């Protein structure tokens, strides 16, 4: 696959010094053929491929250090504990959290949201209270709140989006009221790529003394995250979308908030002392980490974040923005393509429909060109309903994608129209 760095279609690519071909060498899974064609992996919003450094970190842990954490007096357990806690500190620094006590390991963003719902939500939300989400949310940031509302007799309020896929901020400001207990909003829409004005969202909520949870699952892989600057109360993301392993994710919570929250699950590691009469819970963050954690996953995720920091998250964002502009131009030039989601500020997500060809058929035909995309509702059915489409094709880009790969995508779309629509 040739890249077009510095070509007229991608002006400025050379200026950033982004050596995409060298970076691609770090990702073994990219170098394979599917259906006889070189793999073009454009499904990064679903999950990203893993750099060799992450794969090596997992192998090294299981080859050398594997033991349970926080309990053994033997050397391997000490090594595993050190590696696990070291991972927590690396992630703390990556997010610029004030303390490692604010970093709770969970399975993924979904579990982090469920934790906040079950622990924070059940404590502060009562009958007649309100929770504000947005029309851009992934099901993971809708369904837990619906469950809570049903349980407590509370109401879910939804910030609408305009035709471009931007949040209507006037409506947001109007929705914040005396009964609002929590705002839970995404930083980047997985289905459309919209980057929400998260600073403004947090500022307005805090002015009314309302806690804010930021779903950072689609932001963390693509831009620097500074939770103290954001001043959010909770920030959640998944390891596997951030070039790390599956089954590991992070809940960041302000220490003062986490301190006041009851445990999420009961079990080992989350306790200080257990008798049949009473149990004393452990300190942060262990209070929220019942049972043996995903030790290797935490180490793998810290390695992935170090890898991203090594490349530079600002440079990653700049490269992906260039890809987005190139891809947008290419798709707008394709007959029959209608982009869904044209927000003013967008992450590198190209969601679209092809006239006369269902997204699922486009997906199959692209797969035969070696191009992996998502076709469907992207776990955001309310977004699809808002734009009046049952499904879209979504090409979601990552740091290793190239302008040439976007041209392969465009060629695949032409064939889809020839086969089905012609």
């Amino acid at each position, binding site marked *: 696959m040739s890249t077009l760095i510095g070509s007229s279609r991608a002006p400025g690519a050379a200026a950033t010094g982004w050596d995409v071909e060298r970076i691609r060498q770090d990702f073994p899974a990219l170098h394979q053929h599917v*259906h*006889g064609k070189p793999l073009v992996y454009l499904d990064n919003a679903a999950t990203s491929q893993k750099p060799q450094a992450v794969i090596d970190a997992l192998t090294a842990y299981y080859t050398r250090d594997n033991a349970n954490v926080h309990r053994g007096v033997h050397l391997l357990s000490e090594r595993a504990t050190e590696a696990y806690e070291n991972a927590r500190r690396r992630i703390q620094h990556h997010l610029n959290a004030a303390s490692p006590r604010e970093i709770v390991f969970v399975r993924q963003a979904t579990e982090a949201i469920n934790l906040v719902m079950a622990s924070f939500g059940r404590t502060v939300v009562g009958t007649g209270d309100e929770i504000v989400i947005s029309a851009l949310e992934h099901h993971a940031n809708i369904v837990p709140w619906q469950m809570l509302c049903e349980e407590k007799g509370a109401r879910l309020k939804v910030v609408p989006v305009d035709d471009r896929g931007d949040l209507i901020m006037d409506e947001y400001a109007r929705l914040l009221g005396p009964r609002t207990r929590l705002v839970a909003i995404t930083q980047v829409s997985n289905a459309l790529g919209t980057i929400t004005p998260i600073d403004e969202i947090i500022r307005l909520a805090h002015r009314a003394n309302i806690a804010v949870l930021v779903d950072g699952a689609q932001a963390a892989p693509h831009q620097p995250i500074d939770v103290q600057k954001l001043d959010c109360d909770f920030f959640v993301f998944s390891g596997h979308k951030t070039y790390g392993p599956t089954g590991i994710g992070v809940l960041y919570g302000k220490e003062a908030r986490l301190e006041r929250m009851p445990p999420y699950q009961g079990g080992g590691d989350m306790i200080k002392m257990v008798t049949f009469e009473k149990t004393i819970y452990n300190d942060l963050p262990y209070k929220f980490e019942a049972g043996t954690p995903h030790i290797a996953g935490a180490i793998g995720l810290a390695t992935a974040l170090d890898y991203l920091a090594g490349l530079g998250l600002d440079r990653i964002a700049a490269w992906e923005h260039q890809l987005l502009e190139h891809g947008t131009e290419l798709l707008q030039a394709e007959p029959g393509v209608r982009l869904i989601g044209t927000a003013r500020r967008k992450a590198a997500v190209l969601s679209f429909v092809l006239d006369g*060809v*269902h*997204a*699922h*058929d486009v997906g*199959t*035909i692209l797969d*035969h060109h070696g191009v992996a995309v998502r*076709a*469907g*509702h992207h776990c955001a*059915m309310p977004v*699809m309903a808002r734009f009046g489409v*049952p*499904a879209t094709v979504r090409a979601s880009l990552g740091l290793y994608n190239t302008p040439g790969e976007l041209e392969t995508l465009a060629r695949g779309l032409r064939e889809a129209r020839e*086969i*089905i629509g012609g």
Partner: protein
Amino acid sequence: MTDLRDLYQQVILDHNKKPRNFRVLAGANRTADGYNPLCGDQLKLYLDVEDGVIKDAAFQGKGCAISKASASLMTAAVIGKPVDEAETLFHRVHAMLTGDVTASRDTSGNDGLGKLAVFAGVREFPSRIKCASLAWHTLRAALSGARDAVTTE
């Protein structure tokens, strides 16, 4: 390597573009809804069953080429058939889609599938089998009088 033409056969493309029996059936006495939550395919099936025979069949809905063509060809295949024959046909189609060659034929080795055999290529595309089977599961639900929407999950 599988070929896209095995999946998108001319008959399928034709039924996708010009689906047969694509309408609301006013006199229907059996209906069922089918839904594929993975891709959002939705269809409503209408049957007019009298004296154990499917007198008429029609459908409405949204879906990919495979699901639309499957519903179109299915309605054409079952109109005029006794209910038990439609049921047998369901099993044959299901066996064909899942690659169970023996179950897709009768004792004389005849598959009795006729035009429906164009969907044989679907089994090489595991993510698309549910697109082809959605209409058939919905047919079964309509015949058994199920009230909830059928889903492929």
